[in-house]
């Protein structure tokens, strides 16, 4: 097992281009030893590229990859003690399931008795025992993917197992079950696991910590709750949550920042950050879950017109317009559904200030 440190890492597939286009833009990141991590982000943001750099299938064009502090840039995947599972199942068609699972062990020169017990154990966990003697070519897509995973799991030399959207081809029912299974395997073996996905639900059910990636960089690394409550970039706010965060473009004014003619007071730390910055790209973000919808007018509420209401079964999302800007709010289960217009307020503790798309901390803990 190992800690994986990505140091000033950047990657461009075509370094001859001028200027080079970066699939990974310079970043630093540490995957701690033994954790279950998700690497979450939209398609094309560089997740697979990052994973292939960690496993050694790709050599980064800039920066270093360190395993437990040792630079491994030049070490090929075979010698990195890394297992990787790909989006589409890779099985050795002509081999039996048993031979597939035993393949990496045999290549390492493991003894037959050890192979037998290890393969049996993993087949048991993945519920492949019944098909062990079957030819891999004749398996269903999800059995094949389990075999692909199994080839990573049988090895006990691995420092980390990397999963690149491994459940794409699996039925939703089974997806959930396999994800649980992976989680259990993690709890049992405590191997570092990095799980790539573009599905936030998948990420939060699997991982202790999620790295959210955007435009070739990890923009936030935190627990699912941190990503939800304190998105440190507007993209995180927009990408996490369903629907994503509401953003109001605001201007400086003497109370702090103002939207239309509504003034929002700021914390001392926020005020200070605002003074230090000359930018006019200022936004306030608030999650639909935290927008307060009132049945009756009151002193702190603002009238907003109702555009439409979506019923999502257990709760409803209402889309409102306030001063020409669309705002979504989540209604409580027992709450009256407003018609035409309603009154909303923004609890101060859930209002996040973003300068140039980056979060300003409400309290300055760094001083």
């Amino acid at each position, binding site marked *: 097992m190992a800690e994986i440190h990505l140091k000033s890492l950047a990657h461009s597939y075509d370094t001859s281009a001028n200027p080079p286009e970066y699939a990974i833009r310079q970043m630093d990141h540490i995957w701690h030893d033994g954790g279950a991590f998700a690497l979450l982000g939209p398609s094309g943001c560089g997740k697979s590229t990052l994973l*292939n750099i960690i*496993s050694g*299938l790709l050599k980064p064009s800039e920066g270093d990859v360190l395993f437990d502090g040792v630079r491994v840039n030049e070490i*090929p*995947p*075979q010698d990195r003690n*890394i*297992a*990787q599972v*790909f*989006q*589409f199942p*890779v099985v*050795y*068609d*002509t*081999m039996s399931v048993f031979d597939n699972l035993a*393949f*990496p062990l045999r*290549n*390492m020169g493991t003894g037959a008795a050890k192979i037998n017990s290890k393969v049996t154990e993993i087949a048991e966990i993945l519920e492949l025992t019944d098909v062990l003697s*079957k*030819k891999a*070519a*004749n398996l269903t897509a999800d059995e094949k993917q389990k075999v*692909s995973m199994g*080839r*990573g799991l049988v090895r006990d030399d691995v420092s980390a197992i990397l999963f690149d959207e491994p459940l794409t081809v699996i039925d939703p029912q089974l997806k959930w079950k396999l994800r649980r299974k992976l989680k259990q395997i993690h709890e049992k073996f405590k191997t570092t696991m990095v799980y790539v996905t573009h599905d936030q639900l998948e990420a939060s059910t699997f991982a202790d910590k999620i790295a959210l990636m955007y435009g070739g960089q990890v923009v936030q690394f935190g627990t699912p709750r941190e990503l939800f409550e304190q998105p440190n970039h507007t993209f995180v706010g927009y990408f996490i949550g369903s629907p994503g965060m509401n953003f109001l473009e605001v201007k400086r004014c003497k109370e702090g920042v103002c939207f239309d003619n509504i003034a929002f007071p700021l914390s001392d730390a926020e005020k200070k950050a605002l003074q230090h910055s000359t930018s006019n790209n200022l936004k306030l973000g608030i999650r639909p879950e935290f927008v307060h919808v009132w049945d009756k007018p009151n002193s702190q509420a603002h009238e907003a017109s109702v555009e439409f209401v979506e019923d999502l079964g257990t709760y409803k999302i209402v889309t409102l317009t306030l001063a020409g800007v669309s705002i979504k709010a989540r209604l409580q289960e027992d709450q009256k559904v407003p018609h035409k217009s309603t009154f909303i307020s923004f609890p101060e503790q859930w209002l996040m200030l973003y300068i140039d798309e980056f979060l300003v901390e409400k309290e300055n803990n760094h001083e």
Partner: protein
Amino acid sequence: MNKPHSNKAWFLVLPVFILVAFSAIVPLMTVVNYSLQDIFDVSTRYFVGTEWYREILNNSRLQDSLVRQFIFSGSVLLIEIPLGIGVALMMPKSGKWSVISLLILALPLLVPLNVVGTIWQIFGRADIGLFGWALNSLGIDYNYAANPIDAWLTVLLMDVWHWTSLVALLSFSGLRAIPDAYYQAASIDRASAWAVFRYIQLPKLKSVLLIGVLLRFMDSFMIYTEPFVLTGGGPGNSTTFLSQALTKMAVGQFDIGPAGAFSIIYFLIILLVSWLFYTAMTHSDNK
């Protein structure tokens, strides 16, 4: 369940049926017809049953031809299939050099059969041919016109030169169709280069190789033009393969009846061997 029954659907099959009838069944039945009769002229013919068949099967010259033919086709497959795969494995995967090597490989396939024969006929001559001259200068006594083994090897070499490209191109397309993830997974699994070939490339090549094997078998089993142009089937009968033996019988001696029986047997052998290859290469899938 009672489905409405209509025979009109048969009309839709009719065009295909007519096409197949005229292109295959009618000519074949004509040959069957010939093979069962002794024909002297248009009005004088006798039904002879299986007599021609017995005669053909007992004809020792034809038996020799058949053995020669099997050895030839076997050699062609044993050389061209592995060689073609090898060439495909060594080809650049992409870029300018990939295109150039594809073009070079395609060239021999564009040369007509009789031209191939003529090229090698001259190329192999000891007096004016570069190949024959070079071999003889090296002290190798090479003469395809006099030495049966030399003639035989020349025909084989010609075929390899002409058709290995086909296998290579088929294999190349098969290799290109293997997703990168297979190679990536193999390197993560620490597979050796041989294991990658044995467990990834070869299995993925199976379907194109099946086509390659069938095409090369059928084609080489019917080889005619090249040995005919090179030595006319000689020296002696050493390069007289089945097609040429058949032509001699049908056109040269005008023995239509035996030639008909010969054709049918020839056809059945090709069918049988192709079927054997096909089942041998596909049946291992079902387990």
